[in-house]
């Protein structure tokens, strides 16, 4: 029962008082209605029009979507996203889990180590991109340094190699986010009952079996959250690509987010740009909506 009900008396002042909470909420409702859902509707509409440099309203049906899937750059962007997304999520989860288990062993200076593992999360992807861009640059970075140490044949030019450049994005992105995944798993581990583990240990279970059979299955909710967060970050990835490779060499590290930006704002193909944004939204919605749905229902 809401408290507003108890104060249900007539009179202008009282009526204003009753309306006050909704009045306070109304700017937010208006903002969300216009700037989130209205804008989604507008972009959706544009994706069916012949918009080029500016929005225009000539209806072209599914034409933009047909064209989009025939553009090779979009093809590249989507397959890059699959490669990047799968590796990014898998490595972050594996590394995060490993670090969380290692840290959960009554480590001295745990607080300090955790701080070190997690600080990249506070940085901008542009900063991360700049640091890794020059560190991975064969001319001055790792390759040059190893050459300087006397290993002349050492080669590490992934960032300049169109077949390997996408993996440098994985490297930098994993560096930035894996500490965060570690924190999520650590929170999950700390929620596990110690008694059960002790009992299993007394029964002679090996450490490995203990984790595989008891601990890791109980981390399912943490895995779920990590997957949703990482998948949604992967699809939105834009800054890191811009700072690290600029989408290159050539178009070898383009992702849907960079594709959308360049087609909309520099190639003047707004209709196609809008169509690509709609597809990005649909992909994220397919992941986020069921998750939010289950979370909001559970609360009832």
């Amino acid at each position, binding site marked *: 029962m809401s408290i507003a009900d108890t104060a249900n008396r007539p009179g202008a002042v009282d009526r204003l008082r009753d309306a006050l909470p909704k009045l*306070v909420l109304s700017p937010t409702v208006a903002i969300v209605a216009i700037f989130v859902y209205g804008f989604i509707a507008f972009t959706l509409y544009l994706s069916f029009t012949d918009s080029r440099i500016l929005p225009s309203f000539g209806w072209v049906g599914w034409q933009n979507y047909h064209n989009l899937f025939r553009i090779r750059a979009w093809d590249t962007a989507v397959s890059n996203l699959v490669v990047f997304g799968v590796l990014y999520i898998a490595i972050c989860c594996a590394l995060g889990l490993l670090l969380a288990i290692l840290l959960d062993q009554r480590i001295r200076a745990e607080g300090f180590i955790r701080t070190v593992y997690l600080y990249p999360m506070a940085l901008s992807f542009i900063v991360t991109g700049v*640091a890794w861009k020059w560190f991975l640059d064969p001319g001055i970075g790792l390759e040059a340094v190893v050459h300087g140490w006397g290993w002349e044949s050492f080669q590490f030019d992934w960032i300049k190699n169109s077949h390997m450049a996408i993996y440098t994005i994985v490297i930098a992105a994993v560096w930035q986010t894996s500490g965060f995944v570690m924190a999520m798993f650590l929170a999950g581990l700390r929620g596990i009952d110690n008694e059960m583990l002790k009992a299993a240990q007394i029964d002679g279970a090996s450490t490995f079996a203990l984790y595989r059979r008891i601990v890791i299955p109980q981390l399912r909710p943490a895995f779920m959250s990590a997957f949703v967060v990482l998948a949604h970050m992967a699809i939105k990835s834009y800054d890191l690509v811009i700072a690290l490779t600029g989408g290159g060499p050539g178009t070898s590290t383009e992702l849907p987010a960079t594709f959308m930006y360049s087609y909309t704002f520099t190639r003047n193909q707004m209709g196609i740009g809008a169509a690509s944004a709609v597809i990005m939204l649909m992909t994220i919605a397919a992941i986020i909506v069921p998750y*939010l749905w289950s979370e909001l229902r559970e609360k009832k």
Partner: protein
Amino acid sequence: MSTAPDTRAFDPTAAGAGSGRKILQTSLRPARVILYLLLALFCIYYLLPLYVMVVNSLKPLSEITAGGMMALPRDWTLAPWQSAWSTAQVGVEATGLRPYFINSIIMVVPAVALSTLLGALNGYVLTKWTFRGATVLFGLLLFGCFIPFQIVLIPMARVLGLIGLAGTVPGLIFVHLVYGIGFSTLYFRNYYAAFPTELVRAAQIDGAGFFRIFWRILLPSSGPIAVVCIIWQFTNIWNDFLFGASFSDFDSQPMTVALNNLVQSSTGVKEYNVHFAGAIMAALPTLLVYIVAGRYFVRGLMAGSVKG
């Protein structure tokens, strides 16, 4: 992203070193040694890029191009920092990053303050003055936090043009406010949900009004969540690149965009040391917040992702 009722529910930074398990300890001592070695190795992995940025921002360019990226500076110098701050070529003009740093501050402060305030009021209404459809509304609000912002770029560019805020810092404040409300509402809603409604009801029987209850009863106990929210908004808005790149002009660019321009500029010699100094400048505010209030930073992250 969860609607977990309590952001304090689990806080890995609050738990001291004593709360862990010691499963590996039952094996022999060498296991502990390997454990610490592994942990140290990962510390190096995470700190390496920071080390690279710091040492290379303090050495002359020639030492970097000669293959000495990993070495400590032989000639320590602050010149790259001076250059990055006030004389480096950013885009067309040789102003250094200073004006853009100021832009970012002018942008961040009102955007954070306004979105936090609105979030607090929304959370108050959504938990203590609920109405039919409040959960649905909250769900719609929450979904807005996770949309890829590419979907709003085109109409937002139009709207900013129409209201005369295109390419200005106030325009960026507006955009960040609009898309920051979702998260700030999430934080305060989950926090206030755990606040005893009986207290609010008692105050109401005593004749206290809507704002009086908020001001006198809820706000005084909102300190922790306000800190979490402010830190989250500050980090996100300071680190934003997409909106900055889309909606700013040369003189209203935020720090991230200016840093990217500095690094990507194709004219002249690439001054890596200046780039690194600039990158540290862009990272410093959020890094400082993280070091000073890391516990709240983690709470914010967790509240956005883990069930309570």
